[in-house]
């Protein structure tokens, strides 16, 4: 039986109990005259930092790592997150990025620039776009850049457009990015099948429409088969089509955003292209554009001229979204990923991830999980509704998720997209074997069976993890919220009279 490690690991500040002086790094010292010192008016007082030796620090963090779960530990079917295996060879890539300064003379980093250039070329090819910028550090930053590009494009055309259309299945980042870019967000409701309602779209699009932000396959895992028509409707009114390609896993090697009529697309190299997620980041993004829109991309972009690689700024570039060249350390990991799969492997990604999703649907078809448009094939992910189970047993999507933790799996994404009640969003990816898929399906079936037999027990899960369910009220209440050790100390000092107001 699976059981997660549990260490009673104190906070790093509370390990050294003697107050003795310890240090985990020896600082190199040069023998140079030291008649210089910070002016007294600027000098800082003592800082409360831990005092520990290297071995104490290492053991502390290793123990913490044992109370964590990564895709190297087991399957993480988190929908919309694409938790595929991150090949170990990606780590080799650091040799051409780690020690190079982003403002170094270009002549000294030709090899690194060549790697970035090749990655740009490959991403152009798989997206069908004309140019890619790797300056965006993540998907959301790509969306923001894309929205700002659309804004600058319309302003240049002197057309006053103040609305951004967003599908109601969209990831929360789409409306958030649109509003950061200064647009009013207008939602396009999905039809019965879970697809964009083209008639509704037609009647909503107007001269005020700057663009339409869309994911295809959408977050229900459904391919928007009317995409050509959607593209026509938007473009006829002078709008632009934005592709949220955070997750290209469902179409990679099958169909390309550029061929579907999209003008701007962002990719998450930390989803589709194998960059590890690091517990929330860092990732790396790519922002690709077609035709005239390519001139608005954020810079720098690597270009090749006379056999030399240089950084350049497109003519009407919106500028910089991050301070330097983008998360190149992770671009290099994606480079290794693409090289390791090659054209043969890349062409199989959507085929195999789609196969895995539809296999799970097949295995779960007799469960009480419900599916909108059950006869339509899913792509890289599927969203089940546990509403019927909830109505009949009181066991919610959250309880099912916690039940899966007890079975040694990570949980699916839950309660997203918001248009599905008691949503369980499952994305198995192409790197889970048929054996693991079977185990996962069986675990889920067992949990549903238990929902009917012993719902109370499920509502108390998980119990095989380091801790059980956490008190969210205490965590968030203004009189108990504790975001740092500093606040803990203040609470002690003020006898808990520290309210966040």
């Amino acid at each position, binding site marked *: 039986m699976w059981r997660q490690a549990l260490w009673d690991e104190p906070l790093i500040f509370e390990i050294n109990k003697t107050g003795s002086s310890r*240090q985990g*790094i020896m600082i*190199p010292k*040069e023998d140079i005259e030291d008649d*210089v010192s*910070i002016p007294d008016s*600027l*000098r800082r007082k003592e800082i409360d*930092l831990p005092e*520990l030796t290297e071995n104490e620090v290492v053991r502390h*963090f290793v123990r*913490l790592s044992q109370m*964590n*779960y990564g895709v*190297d530990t087991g399957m993480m079917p988190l929908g919309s997150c694409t938790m595929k295996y991150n090949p170990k060879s990606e780590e080799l890539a650091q040799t051409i990025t780690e020690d*190079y*300064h*982003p403002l170094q003379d270009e002549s000294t980093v030709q090899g690194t620039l060549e790697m970035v250039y090749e990655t740009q070329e490959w991403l152009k*090819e798989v997206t069908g776009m004309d140019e890619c910028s790797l300056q965006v*550090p*993540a*998907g*959301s930053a790509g969306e923001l850049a894309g929205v700002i590009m659309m804004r600058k494009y319309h302003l240049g055309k002197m057309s006053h457009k103040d609305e951004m259309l967003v599908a109601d299945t969209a*990831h929360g980042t789409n409306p*958030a990015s649109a509003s950061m870019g200064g647009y009013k967000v207008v939602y396009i409701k999905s039809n019965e099948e879970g697809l964009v309602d083209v008639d509704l779209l037609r009647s909503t699009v107007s001269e005020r429409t700057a663009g339409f932000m869309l994911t295809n396959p959408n977050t229900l895992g459904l391919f928007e*088969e009317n995409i050509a028509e959607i593209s026509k409707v938007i473009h006829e009114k002078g709008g632009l089509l934005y592709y949220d390609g955070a997750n290209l896993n469902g179409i990679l090697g*099958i*169909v390309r955003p550029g*061929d579907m009529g999209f003008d701007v697309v962002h990719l998450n190299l930390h989803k589709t292209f194998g960059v590890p*997620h*690091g*517990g*929330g980041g*860092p990732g790396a993004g790519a922002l690709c554009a077609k035709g005239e829109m390519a001139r608005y991309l954020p810079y720098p972009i690597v270009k090749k001229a006379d056999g030399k690689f240089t950084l350049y700024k497109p003519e009407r570039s919106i*500028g*910089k*979204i*991050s*301070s*330097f060249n983008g998360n190149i350390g992770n671009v290099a990991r994606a480079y290794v990923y693409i*090289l390791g799969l090659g054209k*043969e492997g890349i062409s199989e990604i959507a085929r*195999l991830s*789609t*196969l895995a999703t*539809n*296999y799970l649907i097949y295995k779960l078809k007799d469960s009480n999980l419900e599916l909108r448009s059950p006869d339509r094939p899913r792509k890289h992910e599927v969203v089940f509704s546990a509403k019927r189970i909830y109505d009949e047993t009181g066991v919610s999507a959250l309880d099912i998720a*916690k039940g899966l933790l007890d079975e040694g799996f990570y949980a699916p994404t839950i309660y997203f997209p918001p248009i599905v009640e008691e949503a369980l969003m499952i994305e198995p990816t192409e790197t889970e074997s*048929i054996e693991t898929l079977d185990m996962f399906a069986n675990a889920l079936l067992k949990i549903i069976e238990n929902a009917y037999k012993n719902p109370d027990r499920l509502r108390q899960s*998980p119990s095989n993890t380091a801790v*059980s369910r*956490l008190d*969210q009220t205490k*965590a968030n209440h203004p009189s108990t919220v*504790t*975001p*740092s050790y*500093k*606040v803990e100390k203040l609470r002690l000092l003020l006898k808990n009279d520290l309210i966040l*107001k």
Partner: protein
Amino acid sequence: MTHPWLPNLSSKEDILKAMGKTENDLFSDVPKELMIKGELSLPHARSEYEVKMRLRELKDKNVELKYPPFLGGGVCPHYVPEAVKFIIGRSEFYTSYTPYQPEISQGILQALYEYQSLMAEILDMEVVNSSMYDWGSSLAEAVLMAFRINGRKKVIIPELINPLHEEVLRTWTEPRGIQLVKVRPNEEGTLDLDDLSRKLNGEVSSIYVEQPNFYGILEDNLETVVDLARKLKVVTIMGVNPLSLSLIKPPGEYGVDIAVGDGQELGIPLNYGGPYMGIMAVRWDARLVRQMPGRIVGKTKDENGRQGYTLILQTREQFARREKATSNITTNEALMAIANAVYISLLGKNGFKELGEEIYKRSHYAMRKIVKELGYSRKFQGDFFEEFEINLKNYDKVHNALLRHGIHGGLKLSDTSSLLCVTEVHSKKAIDEMVSVMKEVM
């Protein structure tokens, strides 16, 4: 066909058969005319060994410098200890996701809580989030926060702001109609307070100061700046190099509202542009905390009364609030925050101070040597940390001579001006050699 990363590649047909489907059935909804025809123009699959050889080939095309470059401008070369690399390489951290399921993710949650706590001590501020992308984007988010708080559109920034940060700030805030107003430096290279008071008024949303500024110069009058701003209810934002806070007063001591910066200098390699580590912190004030973007980890208890950690105040975020969220940020730089936490823990109270002092000493040694032996001058006379500007007659000539010796000199600010960065990775020998090559081409 088999591939080491694709377990079901060889059993595709069997799985399809079990399901009673064909591959075409799975893609029946994709219009035929849109599908990719023929092969993608990508390289053939390479074995790990071949990939390694290709990377070696690329590395050989880079110039192997004799010493780490004397380059800063927002990120600086430092030594990253093996223990830091080892911990962030632990795959339980490295291959995990944002801890949406806290019960199974206590490790990363506690590590991030410790990052927040360690950074809170360094900044002397109570609430630190678990990371933005980098300094520039943290600054942009801070300015947008201030705009949401007071609805004003004017923002004061120093003329000696890092130009890269300024550029990011402009890109992010221009769509919201934010206007940037610059304050001149005085002879010292610090903020000209007269110019500042002329520009500061009730229409100003926030004021941003950088410590040290782009020229490495330490602002020595921030108490006055914060005082002036507070009277007009202007939000104060301070950008800091956290490493300099080993020696100088932290933002919290000035009572600023928001602190931003980059954690790169605390255990993160240069990475040719990223990943870095955007720092963002605010004072203990609900108005600020509720407008703060990004993930925050908090301490709580589980159902059995055991101590635990979880993501808190999530109603600020995009998945809950969509277009009304405080930001669109989702993926952040969490693992880099852990690198910061491990590095700061290793340094500890004494190491942190020792490191700051060593860098301060070495950079002053280099500046004095250049001024004394080459007769070059500095444009501004204020005291500095780690980076300093010098005027030379011909940047390109000096730069190329240095490169011929395998040394990368400072950053070009103009044809006659260079910004040099000296840290603990630049030995006395390296500094001396750089200066003697510069002397040759004088």
